[in-house]
């Protein structure tokens, strides 16, 4: 196995006599997993894990076949949370689908809203305003931070560290407060509308986000100090659940799962949307593809999200007072006061609510970089106001499909660590 070194971030003890950063070897030699043997003439054991188990992050059920403590195979069973969102979408106007997206990946609702609006806008050929673009970037990056914070805290608990969970959830709470003051909801945000946003940010909101960006990295430093060089953490995660770059691509992994394996595929860079090409940020890439690298990648992604948020705040300052919605009365509901007093506005209001916005015949696939991976919404339209097909490309569904491969021959306790490192959310897997 390869040993790694991490540069000591602590300034005083981390420097040697010449003032150079001291490198500390961190890899620990893991005991070799014994080969399954027939000597004991033992029978394989079948363990049922879940669906109601705190370490399965929702209603995931794993049937684990064991030889002693060695995993022979894992059979995941999903579908306990199946709600038929894709079917429901076929019976709704495009804007009415947005509340459904809140409930798929409920750890990053605003990013899902943005993806849906982008997919519908691609289908209808709508150019959104610049201020809307910046606000949507902020929504995406805030979602990335809260989703990764939940991942970090719960994974810590799975592996045996309770304290960082409290720290990450405190920080997550701050973003939820911002979300609440923007959209009125903490979880079911329904932030976007086709062609714009449900609401502009309230007065003084930017100051709250700027304060978050200023103080949040300290929590990351704290968690970093707790985990990154922690022997238990390293022992539980390094070289556990490794997958190489070719396999990772072949299994269609995406997001941090793919990048931890050394494939620098980030939709924000490779197929830019929302003007991400104009933001200055780095895409962290791992090299070992194990649980530890997935942790490092997600930690760094949060720092990069803060960078993007800071840049977005600067842009937002410049766009003060600019419109958030496209100026098309067929798409955007008029203000309530006008709908109640102006005949034309009332007609547009009525038509939008009763008939919906018709999309041209055609189809559009829009993929965005969600915290879990590439989230794709695929619309097929036959020219009516409701899609013929609304397909969700669910990143954690596809990442989880790889779990049996990742768990081959590991110990039972590693299944928990590997499952945690995949970062699943069952609302999206089962849809």
């Amino acid at each position: 196995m390869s040993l790694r070194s991490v540069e000591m971030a602590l300034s005083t003890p981390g420097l040697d006599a010449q003032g150079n950063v001291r490198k500390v070897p961190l890899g620990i030699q893991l005991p070799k997993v014994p080969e399954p043997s027939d000597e004991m003439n033992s029978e394989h054991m079948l363990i049922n894990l879940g669906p109601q188990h705190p370490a399965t992050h929702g209603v995931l059920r794993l049937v684990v076949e064991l030889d002693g403590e060695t995993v022979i195979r894992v059979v995941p069973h999903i579908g306990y949370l199946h709600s038929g969102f894709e079917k429901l979408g076929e019976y709704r106007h495009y804007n009415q689908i947005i509340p459904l997206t809140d409930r798929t990946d409920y750890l990053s609702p605003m990013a899902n809203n943005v993806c849906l609006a982008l997919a519908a806008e691609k289908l209808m050929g709508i150019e959104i305003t610049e201020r809307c673009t910046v606000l949507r970037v902020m929504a995406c990056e805030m979602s990335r931070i809260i989703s990764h914070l939940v991942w970090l805290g719960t994974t810590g608990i799975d592996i045996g560290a309770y304290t960082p969970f409290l720290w990450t959830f405190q920080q997550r709470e701050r973003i939820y407060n911002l979300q609440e003051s923007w959209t009125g909801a903490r979880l079911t945000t329904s932030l976007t509308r086709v062609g714009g946003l449900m609401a502009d940010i309230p007065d003084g909101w930017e100051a709250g986000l700027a304060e978050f960006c200023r103080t949040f990295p300290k929590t990351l430093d704290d968690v970093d100090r707790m985990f990154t060089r922690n022997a238990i953490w390293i022992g539980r995660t390094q070289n556990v659940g490794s997958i190489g770059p070719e396999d990772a691509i072949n299994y269609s992994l995406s997001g941090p799962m793919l990048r931890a394996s050394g494939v620098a595929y980030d939709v924000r860079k490779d197929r830019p949307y929302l003007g991400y090409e104009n933001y200055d940020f780095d895409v962290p890439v791992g090299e070992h593809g194990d649980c530890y690298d997935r942790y490092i990648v997600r930690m760094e992604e949060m720092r990069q999200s803060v960078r993007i948020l800071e840049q977005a705040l600067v842009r937002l300052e410049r766009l003060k007072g600019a419109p958030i919605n496209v100026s098309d009365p067929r798409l955007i509901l008029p203000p309530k006061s006008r709908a109640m007093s102006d005949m034309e506005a009332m007609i547009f209001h009525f038509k939008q609510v009763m008939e919906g916005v018709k999309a041209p015949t055609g189809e559009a696939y829009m993929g965005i970089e969600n915290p879990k991976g590439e989230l794709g919404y695929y619309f097929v339209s036959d020219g009516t106001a409701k899609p013929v097909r609304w397909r969700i490309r669910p990143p954690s569904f596809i990442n989880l499909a790889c779990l049996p491969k990742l768990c081959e021959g590991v110990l039972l306790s590693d299944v928990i660590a590997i499952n945690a490192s995949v970062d699943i959310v069952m609302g999206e897997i089962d849809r």
Partner: protein
Amino acid sequence: MSPSRPEPSPSIPALTSRFGAAVLRHEVSCGDTIAYLARDRAHEILAWLKDDPAQRFNYLTDVTAVEYRDMERPLEIVYQLRSLDRKADLRCKIELDKRAPLEVDSVYDLWKGADWLEREVFDMFGVAFRGHPDLRRILMWETYSEGFPLRKDFPLRGHFSRAEQTRQALAANPEAHYSLEELSIVESYHELPADVRERLSRGERGTLR
């Protein structure tokens, strides 16, 4: 909407020159190129798209299916391909006549990521993927027999009333959630009571007693 006729992906001329009539037609929608492939040669064409050094569509973004409201239109299997090196996308479709059995070749041997995606299409649309190693229902339970939920002939609220669905759920036996294959791993199947075994072997799971 678009000012001029949009250009299809450069993969299209390469495909038509190599496979000729097997590439039935192509179109561009919202900037994305769609190639319609003949069902019997689709696997061969997809394998070529994956391995040809000029194409290198090494990443299978998604597999799904589309059924149109017009019942005469064929059901479509949709493959979203992506080349990570070339940063290019291509959407391939196979049209399946609904009057014939819905069958296509699995692409699991090309992309392992197709495993669950094809199972989901099977589960939701009833399309059988030939050569898939483990084609079982995935989101619905294994013994689900009401049909295929995303088909247009499947009512939004299901075939049964809420009361009937509740009754069926309450009547389900716990062992119905294990597949026979899993039970046979530890030979616990043979340790089950005789009447349970007998019911399981008849495929009768979830009967109210």
